[in-house]
């Protein structure tokens, strides 16, 4: 899922300075799972804002609403009436959702309440780690299910580098070197042959921003070539 974490309170407060009727919008999907922007987090942040404004005798009002997702228009449309009464929106969705919200309501200023970080997994309670860089040309078949673009800090296609020490990464001594993991896994599976010749340089065209994916069944509708 997409992992994000709530921005520092001071930063959020600064963005909202001067607005009188703020609507905090949460998202019930990825950011809810990583405890950054779901209904509960919206509640906590709204309380903090109200209390903080109370301490300063700031009369601004804070309203809250959490949508199923902010990356689908059908959910964003549900906000239409509530948005009318506010002069700013603070979104706790991931960067995609925040932008889609901004596109849905071009007449209102929209601010981010989280920093979106990566595509990752729940390593343990309260701990999320990155797994995927969305490079558009997945090579997990070659590297035994372990991504060198993401788990190797240098993103090497032919590792490990000389900085690897005792099986750990040069950059983070707590972390096992991705290429050591790839080697050991492929060795166990009898597939070392896959990495015995040089892997070619990455073709970054599959990562040209902003990306588009059109499902094959819809190519004609959007007059698109295949991606």
């Amino acid at each position: 899922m997409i992992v994000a974490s709530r921005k520092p309170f001071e930063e959020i407060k600064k963005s909202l300075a001067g607005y009188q009727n703020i609507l905090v919008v949460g998202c019930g999907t990825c950011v809810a799972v990583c405890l950054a922007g779901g209904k509960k987090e919206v509640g906590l942040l709204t309380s903090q804002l109200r209390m903080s404004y109370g301490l300063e005798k700031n009369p601004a009002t804070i309203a809250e609403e959490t949508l199923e997702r902010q990356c689908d228009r059908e959910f964003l449309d549900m906000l239409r009436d509530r948005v009318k009464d506010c002069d700013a929106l603070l979104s706790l969705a991931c960067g995609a959702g925040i932008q889609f919200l901004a596109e849905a309501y071009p007449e209102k200023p929209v601010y981010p309440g989280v920093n979106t970080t990566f595509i990752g997994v729940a390593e343990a309670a309260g701990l999320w780690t990155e797994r995927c860089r969305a490079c558009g040309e997945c090579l997990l078949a070659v590297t035994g299910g372990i991504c060198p673009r993401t788990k190797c800090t240098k993103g090497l296609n032919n590792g490990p580098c000389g900085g690897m020490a005792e099986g750990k990464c040069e950059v983070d001594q707590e972390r096992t070197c991705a290429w050591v993991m790839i080697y050991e896994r492929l060795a166990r599976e009898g597939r070392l042959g896959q990495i015995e010749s040089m892997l070619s340089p990455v073709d970054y065209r599959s990562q040209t921003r902003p990306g588009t994916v059109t499902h094959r069944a819809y190519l004609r509708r959007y007059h698109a070539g295949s991606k």
Partner: protein
Amino acid sequence: MEYTKELLQEIGLEPERLEMFHIGASDAPAWAKAVTLMTERARSLGPNPLKNV
């Protein structure tokens, strides 16, 4: 608890205003101790500025 205290600190409220005690239902002395402690704290920190919000 630590996290909630941090949330209070972020908005400028003293984290000591909030505390959690584990007290058995029949443990009157522990209860009295906790109440006394928090009353003292409230006295020294002064009234909650958000009392009337």
